[in-house]
């Protein structure tokens, strides 16, 4: 039984720590590398592009049009979005009445149990981001009630919208600065590119399980 096992495991561990009290000196944390705003954008873009991410520099005014162009060019038929987020609202507004050759918008507002088939057949998903990390080149996804987790992993194409002023120097920095330990949500994900594998002969192949393509729009204003 788990309770008995728990007790026996802890007895052994406690006995061992009593036997050999060990003090470990903690060396200082690694210095956080800092980049200028321009360098942050440049580094993020370079690193993510090297991982086959498509990065567009855009603005609050123009990004929705860029998304339209991207989707039209790829002839995407359906797009999963979160209607109650800022990104979702702007998107819906831009779709307006001129939905002609634009993909059909699928809102993710109900529980997955009622939406599973749609989520698994939709061609693309668009989400916001909580920021990004310049040092390693990664987006920070912070799913919420309004913006569910599966939007960024199930559809074959993931589009992410990022505010340039939310690019942090490093993961260590953002954990401290934003005080993550006090507010960890259900799930945080760092994403550095589309899904990939090198399990066959160390040969890189993309889109094995998650998105085959990742497109990032960096809003510079």
């Amino acid at each position, binding site marked *: 039984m788990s309770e008995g096992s728990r007790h026996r495991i802890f007895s*052994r561990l406690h006995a*061992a720590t009593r036997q050999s009290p060990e003090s470990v000196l903690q060396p200082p944390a690694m210095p956080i590398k800092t980049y200028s705003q321009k360098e942050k954008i440049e580094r993020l873009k370079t690193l993510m592009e090297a991982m086959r991410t498509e990065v567009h520099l855009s603005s609050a005014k123009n990004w929705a049009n860029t998304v339209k162009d991207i989707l039209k060019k790829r002839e995407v038929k359906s797009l999963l979005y979160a209607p109650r987020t800022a990104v979702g609202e702007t998107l819906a507004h831009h779709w307006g009445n001129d939905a002609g050759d634009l993909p059909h918008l699928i809102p*993710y507002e109900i529980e997955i149990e009622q939406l599973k088939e749609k989520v698994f057949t939709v061609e693309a998903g668009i989400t916001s981001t909580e920021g990004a990390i310049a040092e390693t080149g990664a987006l920070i996804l912070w799913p919420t009630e309004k913006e*569910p987790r599966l939007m960024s*992993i199930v559809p074959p194409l993931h589009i992410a919208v990022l505010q340039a002023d939310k690019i942090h120097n490093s993961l260590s920095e953002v954990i401290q600065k934003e005080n993550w330990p006090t507010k960890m949500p*259900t799930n945080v994900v760092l994403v550095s590119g589309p899904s990939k594998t090198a399990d*066959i002969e160390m040969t890189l192949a993309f889109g094995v399980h998650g998105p085959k393509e990742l497109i990032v729009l960096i809003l510079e204003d």
Partner: protein
Amino acid sequence: MTSHQPLDFEKNVSRALNDTQLIKNIKSAMATLVSKRKTIFADETETEQLRILGSALKKKALSNLPQLLEQLEEKCTQNGIQVHWAETTAEANQQVLDIMKSHGATRLVKGKSMVSEEMELNAFLQKHGIEALETDLGEFIIQLNHETPAHIIVPAIHKNKVQISKIFHDNIPDEPYTEDVAELTAIARKTLRQKFYQADVGLSGVNFAVAETGTLCLVENEGNGRLCTTVPGVHIALMGLEKVVEKLEDVPPLLRLLIGSATGQLITTYVNMITSARREGEKDGPKEVHLIILDNGRSKIYADPRRRQTLQCIRCGTCLSHCPVYNRIGGHAYGYIYPGPIGKILNPQIEGLRAAGVLASASSLCNACEEVCPVKIQIPDLIRRIRNESYSKDPTCTIEGHGYKRNPVEVLTWKAWQIINTHPLLNAAGLKILSVLGMKLPKIGPLKDWTRYRTTPELANKSLHELVKQHGVDHE
């Protein structure tokens, strides 16, 4: 091979050495991994600082292990993650089965988990009518071929693409034969997507569990881990009890070390941090999350102050990739799911010396593993210790099966050696005898074993001692 069969290491090694295809596949992949790691850790000073930090973080976590585990349990419970404790792999298997049964579940999708391999979970669940499907591409390939992983990080690396093409063609119906890696990957995606959709329960391992917040961190490139931990209604995470770290801020340097050492990347495609089950109002994610914390001999390793460092291991697999022995025999020859240098110290401690002590003999003590270990585990030192303990009857020895190699011939030989070397006259006489008769000794018993793989040393007519006496020492 599973741990239920006794290990015939010598036979395994001979078989591996004769499998030229296997060795070719392994060597080429290891060379790639070694060179990728080198590129990512190009700055030696920074890398060394990082390793010192990583080692200290793991040491510190271990020095507080019971407290941190209690804190982790408390935090997880607060966050709605149900924590289970398993002393043995059998108990952990039963816990997985009970959770599945409580949901009437029959289909499990699995992300990569070495602990699940340690438990031989798939075979156990299959016996109970549950489909346990590996979804990591490498694990999926070897599961189709009924094998265990050959490497901790790249499980199917012993197979080349032609072999994999055949495995796919023989096992996945209605798909055309192809040797194209992108096409093979696409077939896997198509096959497994359906499984993610249908699965009742998802299972994953844990790379780091943060006591401070109750967060489970998982790294991966494929996205199967995120699917396993998000799509099904129930998520079961498995971890060895050594995986706990104190603070969230400890994670970034450890991630950098783990990922850089494992695959030579700056960061994996996904770093997945899970802190709770689906909360009120959230639209997806599992409604239940279970964390099974496994001991399976770890608390015994913990009890020995020097062997304790074995538990610092973050399972990056870089000691395998750099090991000259692993490079020549691959992973399966070791007979346990943790092969290579870390396996040589871990398996004997978990399984006992009688079962797995022989693994410690498979080392040239070249120190490559220690030089690259991201958390500075002194693997060669522990290999030597295990070798010594194989002969030691010392009652303070805590390792199971210690002294199993001890035999009267060897004991007598060393006793004689001791006497001869502490009595100058006997020593001189002994040397004389050896210089005359040494080359004529019959190659039987221990001498036969010793010379089987080694050239017999040529004994000089005169000892160094005598030569020095006669000619003095040339100080030039």
